[in-house]
């Protein structure tokens, strides 16, 4: 009798259960709390990923920076010499480099983030943490390389007759928007990829074509009319326009494309969060 009277109040006042499952869906508030609690894990996973990605390479982290810069340089040379791109009074190399910086980040984070839940089966099938952490890890990992690349590109700009101004500070909100957009995309794709295993190939294929319908190596006004519609609904147009505006100057339409980007971001984030709330706890069944 004494024992029960002691334990009874304890049972009433004790904390909420750490695992409380009924039904497959996770309520939004709960998922948000769990994700916030796991933020340290997010940083550790991102650091691990970064180490793993570049430790083996002889030049280490340099590869992370050299490759996108090299790619941009090749693009600039080829399209300036071979392609008949009209220059609208800006330095073409600076145009390509400043456009390629956000694009390279988008490309890398989207490709690795979309497959993150499946690629980390050894983690996600063995222990619980919010699965959204896995695509988000890829966003962080790619961010290391992006920040350094962007700094180098901005450093090169004055050498390419493109002086930096106060407008250049717009790359900061530009980056935030870029990260949010990528976040929306990878949340949706990482969830879809658990079920539809061809998402991996679809994303890779889409990214290859996508770059050419984004005004990176040309300006929107140069684009042929047939491509205009695609460029207009492309969520990356606004971001690249913003980066161009921040460096080489006003070459795109910007305000309308930015609105398009914002709509995409909100819709994708909403859909991504909804998908993760619904399937977060049952992804492991299909891994």
């Amino acid at each position, binding site marked *: 009798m004494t024992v029960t009277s002691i334990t009874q109040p*304890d*049972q009433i006042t*004790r904390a909420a259960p750490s*695992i409380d499952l*009924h039904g497959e869906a996770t309520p939004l508030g709960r998922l948000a709390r769990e994700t916030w609690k796991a933020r340290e894990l997010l940083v550790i*996973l991102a650091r*691990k990923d970064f180490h*793993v990605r570049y430790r083996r390479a002889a030049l280490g982290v340099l590869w992370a920076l050299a490759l996108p810069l090299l790619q941009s340089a090749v693009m600039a040379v080829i399209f300036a010499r071979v392609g008949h791109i009209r220059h609208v009074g800006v330095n073409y190399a600076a145009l390509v480099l400043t456009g390629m910086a956000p694009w390279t980040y988008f490309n890398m984070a989207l490709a690795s983030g979309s497959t993150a839940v499946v690629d980390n089966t050894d983690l996600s099938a063995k222990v619980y943490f919010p699965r959204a952490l896995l695509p988000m890890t890829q966003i962080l990992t790619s961010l290391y390389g992006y920040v350094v690349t962007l700094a180098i590109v901005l450093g090169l700009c004055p050498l390419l007759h493109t002086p930096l101004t106060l407008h250049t500070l717009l790359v900061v909100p530009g980056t935030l928007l870029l990260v949010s957009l990528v976040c929306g995309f990878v949340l949706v794709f990482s969830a879809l990829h658990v079920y539809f*295993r061809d998402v991996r190939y679809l994303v890779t294929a889409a990214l290859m074509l996508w770059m050419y319908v984004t005004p990176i190596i040309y300006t929107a006004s140069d684009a042929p009319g047939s491509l205009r519609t695609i460029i207009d609904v492309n969520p990356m147009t606004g971001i690249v326009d913003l980066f161009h505006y921040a460096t080489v100057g006003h070459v795109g339409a910007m305000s309308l494309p930015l609105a398009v980007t914002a709509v995409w971001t909100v819709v994708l984030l909403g859909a991504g969060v909804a998908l993760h709330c619904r399937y977060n706890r049952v992804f492991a069944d299909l891994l």
Partner: protein
Amino acid sequence: MTTAIELRGVGKRFTKYVDTPMLVTAAARFRPRTRRDKLWAIRGVDLEVEDGESVGIIGRNGSGKSTLMTMIGGITAPTEGSVKVWGRVAPLISVGVGFHKELTGRENVYVNGSILGLTRKQIDSRLEAIIDFAEVEEFIDTPVKFYSSGMYVRLGFSVAVHSEPDVLLVDEVLAVGDIGFQVKCFERMQEVRARGTTIVMVSHNLGAIQRMCERVLFVNDGTPQLVASPDEAISAFHRLMSTSTETVVDAGSGKRMEPGVVRIDDIELIGKGGEPTGAVEASDPIVVRVHAHALQDMDDIVVKLLLFGPDGTVVYGDSTADQSLGSVRADSDITCDAAFRATLPTGTYSAMVHLERPDLRTTLFQSSLLSFFVNGRNTVAGQADLEARFTLGSAADRHRHLQSLTNLADGDGRGAGEDVDDLETLFGRTRR
């Protein structure tokens, strides 16, 4: 006591896809619906585990016990019912989760520790103890790809047990590393348990279950059978195993090699108390009993016993080929007993009895396999428990014993006589 784990009507249904779902075909409505099968892995589990209690889950492969564990660990949600767990859960479902071979041991400890829910600070303070326990001091800054599998597993286990969770879920991990480390793991688990950690474990090592758990849930074919004391549950499990149709040889009737002579109706294991049982203690006197029916008169019959170990090898075989058991009359029921002591290490064994004709050396009837569990002594490894007695003496004593053995080998009778006495004293003293 307060509740640590509460399962109410828990069931999990898996969907097995016949075709791999493709976004391309789904979008193109190429095929309206992916073909799929649905099956319940486990259903109708009600279980409450108190704080600090140790509960085992046993059952055959595919009985749903691991699925149940993944739900308690929150890795997957139940299709029906509810799962509630209070406190921090560390699943020891496989050791070294998140280990990456390119990272050093130290880096992996941080990754693995964070995955198990530790903060950076907590890992900092436990790092030394973790490395110490894993015995990898010299290699802690070496990438784990250069680790031996033993080192790898030791480090993984060490992080898990040092994460000091409120609820520890153990799935078959005690069977890792060499025997020395297994003993260490087991001791550590006992410590963790003594500290009041709630433990749920799934294992085929019924000996470990019996030693670690206060209650055992026995599941079969996705249905909980009973929650009882380890002895009761293990015994129920073995009753099922011994009548199971999935044993190596077709159950029940056994195999008729030469028809019309004799027939084995049943084979059972009689424990120390004289009752049929499925689980016995090490060194218990036990009897493998065969109930047979003779169809012909036989002057003599040879009984052969075969005992298979957990890995399927023959641990022991013996027969009555050098003795006579007497004649058997036609149309009579006969009972044949093979009594021996279960001087065996922990594990699941199978016994089989052959009835043979002495003159022709042919098998008349072969019984079905009888499966039973031996709860061996903790310290024993290998195929048999030879019940070694250990003694400790001075170096001089040891030298004399060694000398006597050498003298015996050399056939030096003069010095040996005295020492043989000594050896006999030694064995006399150490004999059980």
